[in-house]
């Protein structure tokens, strides 16, 4: 390979390597590229002492510029002394036979900040430098990412709205609280008579605690199947809380009839539910109201009364159903309902 030197005018260096420096044997800057000059607009770089203006970051220990010159071609990192700003990356090489060294620098990854801070333009970079393309890509990708981010936010909002509008309890396939509110409102407005049961599972927490949440979910699904099989298509079953269900029994307002239905359900719920070779034991407590109990039935009132009756069932030992009796505050109760069907 030929070692003949290639001679270029200083102006050519300004275009090819607009961030170059030539430092002489006395450590003085002889030449600086125009882009480098932009970093220090208040100081003419020529004739400055190199190590006064720049701080060597790598190599950190060096015995003056002559030591740098001794290196054939080495990587350097520089910072502007006492100014902060970008860390400049580049290489240094001895300049021919002289004691001068030649450095060519770049901004590295800090180029985006440097372009902003020093108001650099395309003309400040060599035509072969891909900085402009990188800035273009950076800006394009930022814009695209922002647009994607907005889309994600809109999709998220739409998902939440859809969930709010949904009427199905995804675990059991039963209706949810929202659906129940709608159905109740519609039936009351249509002045249709109906019975309402509030069911709360007994010992469900024990199942969860003993066998885990997966077992709990399995039990809830089994309960849903029982409730569906014990009711008619025109009835509505909703899971309104963790282990709480509301059953709206269409056109069945007779408390005795409702109690019999409740007894059948409780009897079914008492049957052990197998889960992964183990048996889960639960039961159910029910509170019952009927539109017949009210001159003008109201959803809130009926739910509260059913809840009160449910509380009585729980209080009296669980596994039973209670009809709320508004007239005298006492409760007709069905004790040991499971025996009827055993």
């Amino acid at each position, binding site marked *: 390979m030929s070692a003949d030197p290639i001679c270029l005018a200083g102006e050519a260096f300004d275009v090819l390597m607009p961030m170059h420096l030539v430092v002489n044997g006395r450590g003085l800057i002889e030449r600086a590229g125009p882009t480098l000059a932009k970093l220090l607009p208040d100081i003419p770089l020529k004739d400055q002492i190199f190590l006064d203006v720049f701080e060597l970051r790598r190599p950190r220990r060096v015995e003056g510029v002559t030591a740098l010159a001794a290196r054939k071609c080495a990587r350097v990192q520089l910072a502007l002394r006492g100014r902060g700003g970008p860390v400049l990356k580049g290489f240094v090489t001895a300049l021919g036979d002289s004691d001068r060294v030649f450095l060519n620098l770049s901004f590295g990854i800090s180029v*985006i900040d440097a*372009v*902003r801070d020093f*108001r*650099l*333009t*395309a*003309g400040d970079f060599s035509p072969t430098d891909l900085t*402009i*393309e990188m*800035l*273009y*890509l950076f*800006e*394009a*990708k*930022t*814009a*695209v990412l922002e*647009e*994607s981010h907005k*889309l994600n936010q*809109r999709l998220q909002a739409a998902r939440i709205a859809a969930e709010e509008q949904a009427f199905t309890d995804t675990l059991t396939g039963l209706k949810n609280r929202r659906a129940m509110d709608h159905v109740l409102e519609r039936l009351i407005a249509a002045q249709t008579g109906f019975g309402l049961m509030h069911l709360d599972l007994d010992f469900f927490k024990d199942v969860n605690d003993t066998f885990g949440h997966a077992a709990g979910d399995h039990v809830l699904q089994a309960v849903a199947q029982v409730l569906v099989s014990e009711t008619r298509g025109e009835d509505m079953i909703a899971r309104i809380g963790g282990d709480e269900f509301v059953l709206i029994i269409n056109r069945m307002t007779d408390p005795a009839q409702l109690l019999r239905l409740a007894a059948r359900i409780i009897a079914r719920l008492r049957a052990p539910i197998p889960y992964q070779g183990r048996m889960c034991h639960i039961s159910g407590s029910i509170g019952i109201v009927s539109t017949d109990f009210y001159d003008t039935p109201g959803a809130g009132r009926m739910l509260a009364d059913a809840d009160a009756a449910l509380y009585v069932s729980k209080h009296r030992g669980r596994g039973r159903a209670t009809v709320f009796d508004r007239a005298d505050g006492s409760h007709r109760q069905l004790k040991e309902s499971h025996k009827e069907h055993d």
Partner: protein
Amino acid sequence: MHGLINRSVQCFIRDTYGPRMWQQVALDARIGIDDFEAMLNYDDDLTFKVLTAARAALDKPIETILEDMGTYLVSHPTTEALRRLLRFGGETFVDFLYSLDDLSDRARLALPGLDLPALELHEKTTTGYQVLCAPGMPGFAYVMIGILRTMADDYGALVVLEHQGQCEAGDCIDVSLLEAAFTTGRRFELAAGVAI
């Protein structure tokens, strides 16, 4: 069609003629969509239906609508990002013209899936150029005329543009550069968000 293009049509009509006009166009187009997402893909057919509805609602030739849209894309504040990306093409209007050869590649780099027709710049005389717009997106040449005219203003160049019709290789746009530095144009800082 990439959602970005449908979204551009929507924003152009909305920002230029008002939200009501856009609602009308979307309704007339019978596409069941009145809000395009820039980051989703749609059937090409939808774009055609929207533009057809816009032509009727605005009572303007489709060429004029597309050219106005090109102008809008590089001059309206909501589309400043696009103007900036195009200005990365070069420091002068002539540099910018030469960068058109890379435009479809640049678009794909920015947003994979955004396939714009390839553009080719041919030098006719020292001040006369021809931009060849490859087929694939009917009407794209008219959008380009709007973009070129407005970018010339942006650079401060005085140009005359003319659509020369179609040939086998696509649509031809003649660009005559009357004066490269007619005005100072708008400034362009490489760094985004720098106060000018």
